[in-house]
């Protein structure tokens, strides 16, 4: 019995088919004339994707019809890894979006990103982006990444609940303690927090105690390697955080609550405050809209004498770079020019306040208030002013090297659950940090 000739010939051509399939799956970089690509790394609901199309893609493409932007929204959580893998294999999008400077650093060190200095000069981006934030993208005297988000930790609170009880937003540690005790006496959870859908939320609270207890000056020294993370000030900061957890300030369901649930608990008045990022403003507004209560925002209190109030820690939750293998770097730079324009900022802050909080020098409360809620306008402006005046701290997700950051996130759970002591936690953090510092993985800091 013989196989039919057709099948035999198909078997014979299988290697050829495989070769074609391999060529198809190994997507090549975008060629000149095809436009430019951006893989949006943080995911987005259908509504948010529509906003990006309307505010980001359509206006840019209308102005640059020969080099249109192709936006590919990728799922949050894994997209940063996909982008990194694509870029280091010489492929990937023209505009490289990363989750922060520590990721950018490795790509810049290995020559996968284009130095942006000439484009920064051409488009005056150094005058349009706040200096201390812009410098987070520097490596060896060149800038490789522009900060897309400009975020900080603030204290959200339920203003309706506060007004009803005659409470005011705390500015000091003593006030915060008194307030939390008063809340617990009324069966109100002091902090609506949780990591049910985002384990890395742990680092928000470490960021808070490091910046508002140990203070930005000490963090700066530690990140420079001048003092260890085991210094008494950091020990006291972590002890303080652990104390909050043990006293029940974080509620009973910290490891279960999702972002939406935390916002809703605060909006219902079951919790009084929420240390959270400006990036969650949208969530908070949506939750308060559901309950009809009023949202309040204040800078996080100073937790120790000598730490100024207000202090805003700088966070760059994502950055924008140009792929060294891009066939259209000029078009990619033109996109960055549009991204950091007042025109785009006005559009996006109206439709999606919080996430696209670009660190523009032109942010002005009066102008912003026309488009966004006065709360957001006041917070964004106050944050910008503080940074411009040099009164800023450091978020762990922006300035810590990757392995140290990962340990900081996981290890703090061991402290909270009584598995290790503060000294052990910080000892391991210092050990990991020292290794990464020696390997050149700590993002460069601008002088204070």
């Amino acid at each position, binding site marked *: 019995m013989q196989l039919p000739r057709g099948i035999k010939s198909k*078997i014979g051509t*299988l290697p050829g088919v495989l070769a074609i399939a391999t060529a198809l799956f190994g997507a090549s970089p975008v060629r000149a004339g095809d436009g430019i690509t951006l893989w949006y790394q943080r995911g987005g609901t259908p509504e948010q994707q529509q906003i990006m199309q309307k505010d980001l893609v359509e206006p840019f493409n209308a102005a640059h019809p020969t080099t249109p932007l192709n936006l590919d929204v990728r799922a949050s959580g894994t997209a940063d890894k996909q982008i990194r893998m694509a870029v280091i294999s010489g492929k990937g999008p023209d505009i490289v979006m990363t989750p922060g400077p520590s990721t950018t650093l*490795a790509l810049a060190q290995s020559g996968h990103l284009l130095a942006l200095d000439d484009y920064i000069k051409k488009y005056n981006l150094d005058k349009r982006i706040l200096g201390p934030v812009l410098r987070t993208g520097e490596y060896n005297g060149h800038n490789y990444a522009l900060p897309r988000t400009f975020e900080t930790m603030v204290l959200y609170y339920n203003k309706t609940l506060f007004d009803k009880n005659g409470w005011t937003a705390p500015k000091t540690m003593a006030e915060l303690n008194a307030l939390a005790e008063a809340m617990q006496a009324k069966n109100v959870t002091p902090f609506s927090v949780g990591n049910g859908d985002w384990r890395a939320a742990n680092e928000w609270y470490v960021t808070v105690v490091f910046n508002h207890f140990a203070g930005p000056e000490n963090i700066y020294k530690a990140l420079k390697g001048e003092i260890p993370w085991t210094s008494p000030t950091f020990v006291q900061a972590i002890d303080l955080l652990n104390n909050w957890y043990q006293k029940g300030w974080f509620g009973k*369901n*910290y490891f279960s609550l999702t972002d939406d649930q935390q916002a809703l608990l605060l909006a219902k008045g079951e919790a009084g405050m929420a240390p959270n990022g400006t990036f969650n403003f949208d969530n908070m507004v949506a939750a308060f809209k559901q309950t009809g209560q009023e949202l309040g925002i204040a800078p996080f209190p100073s937790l120790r004498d000598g730490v100024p109030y207000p202090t805003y820690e700088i966070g760059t939750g994502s950055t924008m770079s140009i792929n060294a293998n891009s066939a259209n770097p000029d078009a990619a730079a033109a996109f960055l020019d549009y991204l950091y324009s007042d025109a785009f900022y006005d559009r996006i802050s109206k439709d999606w306040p919080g996430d696209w909080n670009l660190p523009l020098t032109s942010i002005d409360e009066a102008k912003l208030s026309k488009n966004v809620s006065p709360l957001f306008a006041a917070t964004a402006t106050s944050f910008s002013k503080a940074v411009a005046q040099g009164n800023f701290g450091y978020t762990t997700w922006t300035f810590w090297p990757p392995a140290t950051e990962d340990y900081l996130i996981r290890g703090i*759970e*061991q402290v909270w659950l009584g598995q290790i002591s503060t000294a052990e936690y910080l000892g391991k953090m210092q050990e990991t940090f020292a290794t990464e510092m020696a390997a050149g993985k700590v993002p460069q800091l601008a002088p204070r």
Partner: protein
Amino acid sequence: MRRCGAGELLRYPRSPLDRQNAPHLSLGFAMRFILPALLINIVIILIPALLTVAMAFVDWDGVSTPVWVGFENFRTIFADPVFFSALLNNIKWTLIFLTVPMVMGLAAALMLLVVRRGRNFFQIVYFLPVIIATVAVARVWQGMIYNPESGLVGWLKLHGIVLTDPLARPTTSLYAVATVDLWHWWGFLAVIFFAALRQVDSAQIDSALLDGASLLQLMRYVLIPAIRPTVTLMMIMTVIWSFLAFDFVYVLTQGGPAYSSEVLSTLSYRYAFYNYTIGPAAAVALVISFFGLIATFFYVRIQQRGGD
């Protein structure tokens, strides 16, 4: 030596006796069949496997030039207490999956064999969770069952039954994740065992029943011995799959809280894609492969015995 056509190839070899008289294939003809699969195996299995072995001996962040460090990566993982807790979790996971779904699958298969009415319906119902996407299953359990605000746990709390989210407690997180995977998995075993049971010679079953065997006796002395090769294969594959467990753990807990549900594959992933330390990640992957290799060794031995 004579060459054979494809028709003869399809009949080759049926038995050891056939093998002695089997026609010899021309190398060129045989290669046309072997080459595609061989190429795929080389490109997507052999080369990555060899690269993983090589990476276990270098210091590399995935971007820069790798530097040879010998056994340093193994020293790193053996000095990490999380490695041993993850290994222990994998062993616990294996023991759970070697027992609970096996028993459930066998019991359900027996019921399907005995009760003919609605058999097709129940087969579909048992198998349904297997074809639902892992992330969807995990999110449903996380949000609609375990969650203390939106899930069954939260609903019970409203009715005076206070439970805690098992994913949130270090003592229960691994079992909570395993429960979700069990729910997703056991139906597959039920269907496989049922298919095997249907192949058992009905004369054997009739004889046993005529001899007055009870259902348990029938199971113990006739059915299970008859499907032992299938059960053994599933047990060996369970060992291999248990050391590859990743998806449910990653989606539900990411190894937390406090590393309590960390398994070797999530640890390897964390080393590679959070810490950007590819060397220790590859070293952990080799440990996983080692356990898979042991299971494969037993599998091959059993197969050989069966073939002889």
